[in-house]
């Protein structure tokens, strides 16, 4: 696939940035949710789609990032830029420790060990009352000081939630750009080689475990950024952030959107958030509807939303050429 031209990047970013002016406060809220989860899902896809590692515990690093940011900002009054920088550092460090053990395992055992570590993180968040607030979590995480924005034209008149959305958008766009550079780099290609045939990769002298660990740490760090952004957006952090159901949710987003494509997980995140929001308005049986959607999708869109669209686009192109 050709890399998406820079113009399209800019156009997409501009369209998203316009949401606070075009839509209501509610749309900005939904858009913030989507943009943050898009980063979370894309970070998982570095493992899932590019390296072929199925993690059942990616929420651990999201949770660690969220708690790091919340504890630093709420308990210690650390300014936002520092807290935001600390989140991926801690999440990445945790991913390095857990990943060291996980990458020595394969397939389902790898998945189960990532799950075990994530549940241990959840247990710590749940029980370590003095630091994490235990079951109650930490509420009242402050918005960052965005006073400097008030001096700017246009942006100055926005509410703080909308200004924060713009900050989120910039941070996520930067992270996605870095991730895109990573997957297109020789390092990223190497990950794909490992996904396709780890044994052969080893034969030609690639230190498979080291590459897998590197991917695990990078994915964990970016999940940490997403968690930090989410902690402020949500105005609080709760043990559920690291719970296995959160890991399942991000897995579903990634597969729903299409793990074979860079933009798949982001589209999956948007689809899931919008669907959830639409359907819960009509029925309390959202899990049932989601289950049925997933089953239909599995049979009707085998490559996920973006994968199927790309394949259809190719067929169309082929047909017009013929």
């Amino acid at each position, binding site marked *: 696939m050709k890399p998406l031209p820079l113009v399209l990047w800019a156009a997409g970013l501009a369209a998203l940035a316009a949401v606070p002016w075009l839509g209501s406060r509610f749309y900005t809220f939904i858009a913030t949710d989507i943009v943050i989860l898009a980063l979370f899902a894309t970070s998982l896809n570095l493992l899932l789609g590019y390296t072929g590692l199925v993690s059942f515990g990616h929420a651990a690093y999201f949770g660690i990032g969220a708690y790091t940011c919340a504890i630093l900002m709420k308990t210690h009054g650390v300014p936002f830029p520092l807290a935001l920088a600390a989140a991926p550092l801690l999440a990445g460090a945790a991913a390095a420790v857990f990943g060291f*053990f996980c990458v020595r395992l394969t397939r*389902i055992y790898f998945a189960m060990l990532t799950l*075990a*570590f994530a549940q241990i993180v959840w247990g710590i968040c749940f029980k370590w009352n003095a630091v994490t607030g235990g079951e109650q979590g930490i509420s009242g995480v402050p918005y960052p000081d965005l006073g400097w924005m008030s001096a700017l034209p246009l942006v100055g008149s926005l509410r703080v939630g909308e200004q924060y959305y713009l900050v989120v958008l910039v941070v996520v766009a930067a992270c996605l750009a870095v991730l895109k550079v990573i997957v297109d780099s020789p390092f990223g290609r190497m990950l794909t080689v490992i996904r396709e045939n780890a044994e052969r990769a080893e034969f030609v002298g690639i230190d498979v475990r080291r590459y897998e660990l590197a991917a695990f740490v990078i994915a964990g760090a970016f999940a940490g950024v997403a968690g930090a952004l989410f902690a402020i957006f949500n105005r609080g952090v709760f043990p559920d952030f690291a719970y296995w159901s959160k890991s399942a949710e991000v897995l579903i987003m990634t597969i729903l959107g299409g793990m074979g494509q860079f933009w798949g997980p982001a589209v999956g995140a948007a689809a899931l958030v919008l669907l959830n929001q639409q359907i819960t308005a009509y029925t309390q049986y959202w899990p049932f509807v989601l*289950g*049925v959607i*997933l*089953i239909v999708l599995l049979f009707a869109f*085998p490559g996920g939303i973006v994968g199927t669209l790309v394949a259809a686009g190719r067929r169309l192109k082929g047909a017009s050429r013929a």
Partner: protein
Amino acid sequence: MFDPSFLFGQFVSGLSTAMFLFLIASGLSLIFGVLRVLNFAHGSFYMLGAYLAWQLVQWLGPRTESFWLAVLGAALIVAALGAVIERALLRHLYGREELYQLLFTYAVVLVLADVARYTWGTQQLTVPRPPSLDGAVNVLGATVPLYTLFIMALGPLIAVGFWLLLERTGIGRTIRAAALDREMLSALGVNTSWLYTGMFALGSFFAGLGGALVTPVRSLVPGMDVEIIVEAFIVVVIGGLGSFWGTFLGALIFGQVLAFGIVLFPRFSVFAAFVLMAAVLIVRPWGLLGRPLDR
């Protein structure tokens, strides 16, 4: 607090937990061993078995020996449901990446959880013990309900039965062959398609049976499906996926860790099981009695 009869009581409670888990996890392990599908919906089948048993007991009359009929009926209905799901849907995903099969079984979890919530509501339901097993006996100073003794006897009985089926019968040989090389087996003229359906139904039967048998001991609540599937996963992973005796061993260890974890570290019992799983996987990457999987 740590007098011998108390410790023995904990040991017995751990053992009965282990036997329940073995019943359920053996079905999970069987399905994984033959079909190479890790079935998230196994816990949902367990939940369905429990709710169906409750329903049948209501119809047949509580506090009578018809409890046993209800248990069997519930397990058979669940087995039939498993067969239908495998035949109609899952079968078509065998050629795809295993992640898609996982996603499919997870979707079934979501659907069945809401079906149960819609049908039976969210209040706690309980089933009385059958009159024949209503009493309790005193063993080494600890009071053990007869029903618990029954479960503790049933576990090993089913384990041996399973082992005989797998190792000593023609069907068992076919099942083991299917676990090793399904293409070769179908080339030899065995109808593997129906073999898979049968195995999935059999595995589901054990989930349903476990769910139905647990009703006199635990109350039925939404979320019991997810709780048990996580525990069953831990059991089969500790023991080694697809290894029959590994599942038995895993269940025994898990039951004791749970029973004594609550006594020793009440604050940390939530994740004692996950610490156990992490520790086992770090030392033995394929579980205690498992074999390495090809990548």
